[in-house]
């Protein structure tokens, strides 16, 4: 569904992306995990036509983004990180304009809008101006807008950034539902739990390069199942173990305060890059 072959983006001498290659299968939720400035948003901007490639190639549902950009754009919907809805217009007007941009006839727009407003939980709010909506509702409106033209691929750039935990969970549920309905999802995040909860596969991105790519379980499983965070002499040390018993035995044998917990993607990222994500 998505094929990326050695894409590179340079801004002058600065390299934002360096030879990134990957494939995303139809119906998959693929997460791009990395710290700020790793190149996550740059990748999405390239794939959705907002940023030019310096080198490499990418194909969306069979359409090359450079050779056939308008057809490639028809395959995808984009929910950018920053809210980019028309504040002065209503939810209905924002969705309607999007449908028109993608050439949807009037009846198809109206029917699709009715379905989506219910789908994202915005029924009854279609006439409300965007500026009067909360952050969570704006995010839902953006997701509804991106889905208006029934894209095969949905790009979500930090879909739950800035939202409180309860709203974040609702957005995750919505993303799962969109996947269940057959849409391929490519999301960027720097929230560990978001990638763990949602993704079928995760790519770790650091300084414009993919340093690891696998399922969350495989990435975490390479370290073990359990972790011990040990704080002694103002120094934090983390070790990983296969069993909880081993972890607890290790912690009991050392001086200092400790926490025993499950291995997470942050541990896997740290092991790969020597850096923390957040």
């Amino acid at each position, binding site marked *: 569904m998505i094929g990326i072959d050695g894409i590179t983006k340079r801004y002058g001498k600065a390299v934002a992306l360096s030879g990134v290659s990957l494939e995303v299968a139809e119906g998959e939720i693929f997460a791009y995990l990395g710290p700020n400035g790793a190149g996550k948003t740059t990748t999405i901007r390239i794939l959705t036509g*907002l940023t030019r490639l310096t080198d490499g190639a990418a194909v969306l549902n069979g359409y090359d983004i450079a050779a056939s950009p*308008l057809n490639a754009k028809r395959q995808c919907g984009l929910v*950018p990180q920053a809210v980019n809805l*028309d504040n*002065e217009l209503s939810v209905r007007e924002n969705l309607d304009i999007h449908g*028109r*941009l993608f*050439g949807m006839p009037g009846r198809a727009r109206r029917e699709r809008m009715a379905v989506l407003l219910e789908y994202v939980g915005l029924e009854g709010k279609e006439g409300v101006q965007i500026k009067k909506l909360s952050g969570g509702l704006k995010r839902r409106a953006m997701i509804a807008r991106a889905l208006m033209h029934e894209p095969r691929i949905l790009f979500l750039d930090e879909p739950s950034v800035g939202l409180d935990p309860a709203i974040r969970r609702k957005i995750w549920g919505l993303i799962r539902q969109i996947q269940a309905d057959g849409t391929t999802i490519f999301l960027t995040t720097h929230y560990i739990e978001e990638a763990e909860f949602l993704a079928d596969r995760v790519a770790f991105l650091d300084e414009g390069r993919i340093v690891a790519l696998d399922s969350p379980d495989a990435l975490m499983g390479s370290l073990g199942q359990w972790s011990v965070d040990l704080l002694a002499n103002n120094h934090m040390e983390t070790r990983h173990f296969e069993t909880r018993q081993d972890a607890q035995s290790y912690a009991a044998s050392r001086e200092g305060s400790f926490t025993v917990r499950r291995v997470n993607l942050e541990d896997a990222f740290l092991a790969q890059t020597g850096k923390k994500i957040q």
Partner: protein
Amino acid sequence: MSVGTSMRGTVMSGWFAVYFREMLILRRRLPRLMASMAVSPLLYVIAFGYAMGDQIMPGGRPYLEFLIPGLCAMSSMTQAWGIASEINISRFYWHIFEEFQAAPVSGFAYVTAEVLAGVTRTLLAVCIIIAIGALFGVRLWYGPLFWLAVALNAFVFASLAVASAMLVKSHADQAMATSFIITPMAFLGGTFFPVERLPQWAGMIVNLLPLTHASRAVRLAAYGQLPPWGSYWLLAGLGGIAFLAAQRCVRMARD
């Protein structure tokens, strides 16, 4: 129906969506926009026309009859150019421009829509000036050649506005372009005084400005005379070049 896979577009696909969006915004802001469109012409009419009008008779006509067509021409420039600020705000502040960039809308379709929005806005502003003129007793002939000159001048400056909005890196850059290009042209392009009164060397320079040709054509048409066709061709040619430049700038606007 899966739009993502079944719909095929043309080079003009999506132009109406962009234009429709501009019209929705215009409708929402209409009362304050009309008020703002009326302020400057009203002040010019009071200050230059009403107060000084008795002492100046360009071409043997009352100064207000000279001023109103000039203001129409000037307004067709400033209002069309004004879309640059709107595009800038949607690009740098609201990021709505990205919604258009991510849609299957060609540069040609996008520029067509924005230029049409600029022309629409201009026609509204010119109607307001004509109404102000009528309030002050100015009755002129607003026939097809008058509106053609207004529309062509708006076409030139709306196209330049789109190009400029794509090239600038901030609102401050846009304001600078307005200060150095539009404001001098507004005062020198035959709006407030007959260009023929300038020294020959200055007249030659001023005759290179599109607004000078627009003012001449708009004024003669409003007097019921036949304006020089050369002015129309010049405006159409400049507009065409600016339109092509705007398309290129839209393509270059991707980082």
